[in-house]
């Protein structure tokens, strides 16, 4: 049986790991390479590297950091932030990324997912959506959660999957940084709409939040978080031991 994945997310800016609460008030945490090695040794199942400011400032990803990480860390590595063209896919895949996550780039150019999936395979393309409730509907936001696109989220995500996205990262802006648990309602709506892996993001504050997530929504494949791991509020080894104890398929 496939195990549920625990994925620390490293938001990278100027070569350092940062994490914003509701995407603002960034704090400097540590070296991405060191943190990645540490997480891999603690039992993280996968890592996500996001260049969080790339869409706003058009800055290129720090491919040196990626290359160094991929030469030292041997678990799957997903890269996102500033992915706007197929050439961007090529650039990060050559540096050792296994999957590439698109967000604003797919909103600007809806053909991007189709083109990339055709070239690199569906399993390589991840659609990352920042979603917020507005007037009783789920709406897609762009540019790191700063810009309302006006698009309805479920139909947008379905369209991306139909175009070849092999995985969905659903980040709830409503619960992000609040540490009150994952956005189960939003996650349920998305995981009922698509038949590719769904990764929950935004809102985890403690071990029980992950247990609740996987127990309530067995269709969700993975839980992603950043600051609670970076600051040691949740230790990955403890989290995975608790998941296994709760009967959730877990890689120990």
């Amino acid at each position: 049986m496939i195990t549920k994945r625990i994925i620390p997310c490293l938001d990278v800016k100027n070569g350092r790991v940062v994490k914003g609460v509701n995407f603002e008030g960034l704090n400097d945490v540590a070296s991405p390479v060191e943190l990645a090695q540490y997480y891999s040794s603690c039992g993280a199942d996968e890592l996500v590297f996001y260049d969080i400011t790339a869409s706003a400032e058009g800055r290129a990803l720090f491919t040196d950091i990626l290359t160094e990480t991929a030469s030292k860390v041997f678990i799957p590595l997903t890269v996102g932030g500033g992915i706007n063209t197929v050439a961007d896919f090529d650039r990060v895949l050559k540096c050792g990324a296994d999957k590439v996550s698109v967000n604003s780039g797919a909103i600007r150019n809806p053909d991007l997912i189709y083109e990339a999936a055709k070239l690199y395979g569906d399993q390589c393309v991840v659609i990352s959506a920042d979603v917020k409730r507005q007037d009783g509907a789920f709406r897609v936001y762009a540019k790191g959660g700063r810009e309302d696109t006006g698009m309805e989220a479920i139909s947008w995500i379905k369209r991306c999957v139909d175009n070849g996205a092999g995985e969905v990262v659903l980040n709830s802006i409503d619960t992000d940084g609040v540490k009150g648990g994952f956005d189960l309602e939003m996650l349920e709506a998305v995981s009922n709409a698509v038949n590719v892996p769904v990764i929950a993001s935004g809102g985890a504050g403690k071990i029980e939040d992950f247990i609740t997530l996987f127990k309530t929504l067995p269709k969700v494949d993975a839980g992603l978080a950043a600051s609670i791991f970076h600051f040691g509020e949740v230790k990955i080894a403890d989290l995975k031991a608790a998941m296994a104890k709760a009967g959730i398929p877990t890689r120990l």
Partner: protein
Amino acid sequence: MIAIIDYGVGNLFSLKSSFAAIGEEAVVTSDAAVISQADRLILPGVGAFEDAAKKLSDSGMAEVVKREAQSGKPIMGICLGMQLLFEKSYEYGEHEGLGLIGGSVRPIADVIDKELKIPHIGWNRLIVKKQSPLFKYLSDGDCVYFVHSYYATDCEDAVTATAEYSAELTASVEKDNVYGCQFHPEKSGDVGLKILKAFCEI
């Protein structure tokens, strides 16, 4: 020295790095002379079977791999590289493989429950069926990382481990000096590195 066979398919950066991490020298090459001097060979592969089989044959690497395998040199196919070791694949049609191991490659959709996601992607537990030198350093319950939509079948004698995904899917195979892993040892953390280390000690 380990030769990672380069025939224009996929990214070999992680694979090369993973051998460096266990202190083994690995070169990515399509030079028949280098391959012939190597102690061990890795046949990598991602993407579609037909395209990869054609590239393997067009580059001349298919003949080189067959010759080296017949000479008794340890060779390990990884993911699509493992599938290429078989006689044929039914991925979008019917295509010939290297024929180093008897059996064929078919869609996992044929055997898994309908509600399960395809590809079979993520960490899954190895169910050891037969002892293999590759498993020398493994412990019970070890997980490895899979990404695939096709699986090897009709190869019962060669299967050394499976993974459960409503059906038991072939995870690794072995026939004499020819080894294959459906999963990615270079993406399977310490467990994967232990498998590569064991391969280097055969």
